């Protein structure tokens, strides 16, 4: 199934990049959200996907048998989700502040 997800990741990336290149700050926020989802999906699918077998070591066993999902990308994504959320919260608060101060959200206008 990985090739399919590769295409989906590509679509998400394209959408995210397009939004990041816009001049409206709110569109930048949308781009940011899409980009972090795309990146997470990329990391998840990179080592290969295994359906429906979470990484829980069963009672009595010492190690997990073969044929399970890779735990490392999951740990990375977990961190990424949370950090991405923090960044987004900050960005939105900043954007709101900017709007209250100058009543404009055009990136090119904010330069001056």
């Amino acid at each position: 199934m990985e090739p399919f997800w590769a295409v989906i990741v590509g679509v998400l990336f394209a959408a995210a990049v397009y939004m990041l290149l816009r001049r409206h700050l709110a569109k930048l926020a949308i781009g940011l959200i899409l980009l972090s989802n795309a990146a997470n999906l990329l990391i998840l699918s990179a080592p290969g996907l295994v359906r429906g077998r979470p990484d829980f070591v069963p009672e009595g066993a010492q190690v997990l048998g073969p044929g399970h999902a890779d735990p490392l990308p999951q740990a990375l994504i977990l961190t990424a989700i949370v950090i991405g959320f923090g960044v987004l919260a900050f960005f939105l608060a900043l954007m709101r502040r900017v709007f209250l101060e100058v009543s404009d959200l055009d990136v090119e206008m904010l330069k001056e």
Partner: protein
Amino acid sequence: MMLLLLIIGGLFTALITPVICSRFPKKCGYLLSLQPFAVALYLLRHAPSITGGEPLRYKVEWLPSLGLSLSFYIDGLALLFALMVSIIGGVILIYARPYLGKHPDLTKFYVVLQIFISAMLGVVCSGNLLGLFVFWELTGITSFLLIGFDHEKKSSRTAALQALLITTAGSLAMFAGLLIMGQAGGFELETLLAGDGLQRHSLYLPILLLVLAGAFTKSAQFPFHFWLPRAMAAPTPISAYLHSATMVKLGVFLLARLYPVLGETAYWELLLMGFGGATMIMGGWRSPFQDDLKAVLAYSTLSVLGMLVFALGMGGPYGLTAMVLLTLAHSLYKAPLFLVAGNLDHETGTRSIAALSGLRDKLPLTFAVGLTASVSMIGLPPTLGFVSKEVLLEAAWKHSPLAVTAITVTAIGLVAAAWTAGLKPFRGPPKPTPRSPHEAPAPMWSGPLVLALGGLLLGAAVGLLKPLYQAAASAVSQDTVAVSVSLWHGFTPPLFTSMSILLMGAVVIASFDKLSPLMKLSLHFDRIRPSRIYLKCFDALFAFAARITRMVQSDSLGVNLSIILWTFLLLGGGVLWRLGGLPGQVTWEPKWLEIVLGSLMAAAALGAVFAKAFMGSAILLGMVGFSMSAVFMLYGAVDLAITQIVVDTLTVLMLVLVVHKLPHFKNLSRARNKLHDAILSISCGLFVTLLILKAEQVDFQQSISVFYNDHSVPDAYGRNIVNVILVDFRALDTLGEITVLATAAMGVILLLRGNNDKRGGETS
């Protein structure tokens, strides 16, 4: 051990200098001078055994695998330089206290100066090429700080930067040379010197050129000479010490040190005599016609540095003995002359030769210093200046008529310079000066007087110096040099040359007023002066940097991002191409659940892009997030699914709560920009897809997940491996993550506070 303590002792006394300076504001110069004087005493105590052929050694292994050790090796040459550094250093420390007076940065001055003394001792006593280089750089940095001591003046700052740039550029080249040399002959000085030399090594010429680059920039040889006159922006004691008596001689020291390894070849002779000769003639004839007293001394210093390099180029027993004696003689007359200039500047408020006149009665003791020192500089018997000049001429007569001519021409200029700097300000009728002059305080004339008298008496009793100069010259050549010097050699060619130099010098002094317009005129002809080239390069560098910055650093976010993304595509494409081009045949079996989820996600993402209002986008983004959560669930990433649901709910809430007041999207971009952005973003998406497909076909190293799987239950007692990784194996990462979140939360609170529309809720 004692040796180590004494050499780097200045670094420790520098630490307690602020305490000493505030406790004993009047006496701190004397107290601080104890350290260098202790070094001198220690060296003098061991001098008989060192000159007797038993060098002092001290060695600590530092990085044996790199050939790096902290080792000291004091033979005759090192002894001579170390004695000069420590004794003159002590005099300067005492002199500086009244000279700087109530200067607010006095403590800083002393701290840097002491670090410099240690660095100097480190260079001259170093027994290892790499150690030598480290101390060498330290002298450059301290010199930079001291030239720029008057940091509120722009001219001081530019002079300091110029000196630093030129000398470090040279020392960088020198470092390369030392590294090659170390590879070829060993980094320890003793093994290197005891070896066969590198004169017939295949890389001899590159090594020589690189080392010369370092030595010539440090010792201000033409065409790198121009930083030295400008370095006179430093306080006068610094000019006397760093830029005349000690640091600028390091280049000469290095060449002398490496004489057995690199010397006595045709290249060596040509390069050293060529550049040294150009420097000495240029400096010697520019010197007397300067108006600034310190500039006179600076150019004459250049001239002598050229002479020393010239003498090393000639080589041979007489050339080396002349080099050793001239080094000593120059330090003993030039440092006092600088300090005389300092006294005159301090007492009258001006350094202009034209304004200084008839000060003999007002500053009698300073006059005594100036007189004694200039007699040695002119080279009248029985001074050390006379003796060293005789030996130099002897060496020149043994070498070639051309060498005799070059030295004669230079020496005539120096006679005039000595008269201008040391005697002229005291002669004639007094003229009004900015300050009314009176004799300088005792510390400001006593030390210089001792040095100047040293130059006089050691010349008269030159026999006393015999063990020292013979040991130093022998250390340079690594062979016994038994040239014996005395005041009277009989009627020899050098004596007649010397006498004609004096006569010609007298003629130049007598016709000074006629010559000086001519000299000023000649300055207009040299359009391509090295200092101009330096300035041009310096400006061009900044202009170049500004252009590059303008090109790649736009103030528009969109443009910057586009540049980054295109670069990413280009470089990434290169990597893809190197890995064998496009991915091969892809196979997959469709599963409907995934296809539905993925299509939903893609559709929602595209919808969010094209939505007309922010609210619509927010809802569609929520859909993307929940689909993600479902995907995580599907592939067994339970923790991720839970987190994603929580975060996504909050994100949508945040979007709705915070941004619902925002106006509708406006069409801000032009059609052309939109097209460009569309092409760029589709390329990026396509490229990422290709990258993932390719990644699956390239073999990477084995995942480290195996380790986590093996140790999760036995070592960390956790059955949920993802959780164990987060809170145990990579707990510090998680701590960092929490810190980021906390910082973001604080930022959010600060941004939301301070306006009347408090909504909050997004800090969660």
